[in-house]
């Protein structure tokens, strides 16, 4: 697949749409599915809306598409107020979770459907549908019926249909969730390649954090209809804005501690002094949470200064990496993912080990951020 990405480095044919969303809300009775949601999406950006089910991510997408009318707020697409515009007038490409191909039409007719709706002539429709099928690598599949295709092929057809009239905005509603793991990874790269080739703005809804981190330029984390964090993938992982984001993306050790403004006191009285940058947001004195990614921990001698002492409970060997599950003296579970090669040869369950991490790997969250 790499060759294609490299072959397509010319200027993209379309400039992606710019989206400005302000104060967006959708209430169903007393339920606030989306509340005070605001975001600016740059032209050509790939944005992922990530959250558990019920977080409002799909509702936001449906409001962008025009299938849901917001209770409050505005949606501007390229500066035009689209808040109440019906979906067929928005010129948006959309890919649905279950492909939603028209089962009574051939693949070519499916792909040509948006062109037909725009009054494009038959020969021109055929030519452009064939071209779009080529872009998604389904050259020559035009005469088949959707029922004759595999899941991955159907999703490619759906993709071709969404991009055939060169929309400036592409919306995708968990498009890969119905595919198995290998196909999903392949399609992730495929969609990224298309985004790169076409230069259009993409808004992608997913509940799969790995997918969001892999594909998106920026990830918006949602919970209970509210935006939790909006950051590039790396920042999201390395410095989550709050405890929810910290726990939602990847694995995270959460160690309860007391904060006196300068140092942390852990459950059984160990004191640690984190670097000033470790404190996320404003943290008041009192109960806080110390968060450390499992892969930032390394095993050391228990007497090493500043190391956490822990009792080893389980050693889970998995080839290149090993997962160590241990308990701090106060009982808090702590996990470390270390390279198998770096481990001391004889680790026995029940022995006391030291766990240390670089100072910049420590993150301190206050109580209010725990929400």
């Amino acid at each position, binding site marked *: 697949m790499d060759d294609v990405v490299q072959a397509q480095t010319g200027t993209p044919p379309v400039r992606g749409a710019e989206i400005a969303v302000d104060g967006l809300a959708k209430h169903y009775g007393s339920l606030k599915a989306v509340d005070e949601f605001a975001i600016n999406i740059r032209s050509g950006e790939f944005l992922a809306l990530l959250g558990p089910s019920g977080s409002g991510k799909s509702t936001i997408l449906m409001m962008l598409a025009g*299938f849901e009318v917001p209770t409050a707020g505005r949606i501007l697409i390229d500066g035009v107020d689209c808040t109440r515009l019906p979906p067929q007038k928005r010129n948006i490409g*959309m890919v649905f979770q279950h492909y939603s191909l028209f089962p009574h039409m051939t693949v070519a007719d499916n792909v040509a459907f948006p062109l037909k*709706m725009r009054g494009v002539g038959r020969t021109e429709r055929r030519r452009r549908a064939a071209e779009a099928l080529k872009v998604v690598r389904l050259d020559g599949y035009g005469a088949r019926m959707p029922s004759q295709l595999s*899941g991955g092929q159907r999703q490619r057809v759906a993709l071709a249909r969404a991009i055939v009239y060169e929309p400036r905005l592409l919306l995708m509603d968990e498009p890969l969730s119905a595919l198995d793991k290998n196909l999903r990874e392949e399609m992730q790269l495929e969609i990224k390649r298309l985004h790169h080739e076409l230069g259009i703005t993409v808004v992608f809804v997913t509940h799969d954090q790995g997918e969001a981190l892999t594909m998106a330029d920026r990830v918006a984390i949602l919970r209970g209809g509210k935006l939790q964090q909006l950051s590039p993938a790396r920042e999201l992982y390395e410095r989550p804005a709050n405890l929810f984001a910290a726990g939602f993306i990847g694995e995270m050790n959460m160690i309860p501690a007391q904060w006196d403004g300068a140092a942390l006191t852990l459950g059984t009285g160990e004191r640690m002094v984190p670097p000033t940058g470790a404190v996320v947001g404003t943290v008041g004195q009192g109960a806080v949470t110390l968060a450390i990614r499992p892969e930032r921990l390394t095993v050391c001698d228990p007497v090493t200064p500043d190391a956490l002492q822990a009792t080893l409970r389980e050693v889970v060997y998995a080839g290149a990496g090993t997962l160590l599950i241990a308990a701090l003296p106060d009982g808090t579970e702590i996990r470390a993912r270390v390279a198998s090669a770096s481990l001391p040869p004889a680790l026995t369950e029940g022995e006391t080990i030291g766990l240390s991490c670089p100072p910049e790997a420590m993150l301190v969250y206050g109580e209010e951020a725990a929400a």
Partner: protein
Amino acid sequence: MQNLSPRRLLLMGYVYAVLFFVLAPIVIILPMAFSETDYLTFPPVGFTLSWFTDFFSNSRWMGATVFSLKIAVLTAITTSVVATMATYALMRGAGRIGALFQGLLIAPIVVPHIALAVALYLFFQRIGLSSTVFGYVLAHSVIAMPFAVFTVSAALSAVDATLEDAAMSCGASRFTAFRLVTLPMILPNVLSGGLFAFILSFDEPVIAFFLAGIRDKTLPRMMFDDIEQNLTPIIPAIAVLLTAVSIFALIAAALLRRAAANRTAPEEAG
């Protein structure tokens, strides 16, 4: 595993008895149409097609047939269109009156036709619709509606509602989305619902009895008149023709429904 227990034998006997009593009259009446006698007799005497020729050459019979056909065709069209719109509204609409509306639509199955016929007769007399084509079409559509609603809703429930959303995201209006996506998929069932309506209307006797005027009579009404006055083998001849029409219509409806099943089923596998 053939288990011929007494209970099973009893059940099979019962089923065949029912079939026998349903089919026997038809089996008896049909051969009478070919009898050379000018009264009804079984077994038939000789063989002639003259009763069929009589039927086709008699202007009163032909007039009634054309009148019935006209009503049946219009009923089929009205029923399939209204049933499709109503079913769509019931299944895709967000309204709360859906249950009530559905009850009203299928009520004619529960209400005895004679009660419906009397009510329609009194009502149509007053507003001048009695013995008009329009009146017949309205009355027959009411009777046929439940069957068409059932057939269409069976098809519509198999069509993914997001397909229309997908069509709209492609630039289609709600109506275009329905016309180009949903309608082609449910069309076989819409047509078979229309065929049912056609059959129901074409040999409907009860309402025809009440609504008939002096001149314009439907075929079943004419047959009643003829049975009272003459009772020649022209009646079994017409019965042969009506049975043939019904059988062809039912076969056509079954083929249409099978086409529908083939069309929508494979997509669900994904």
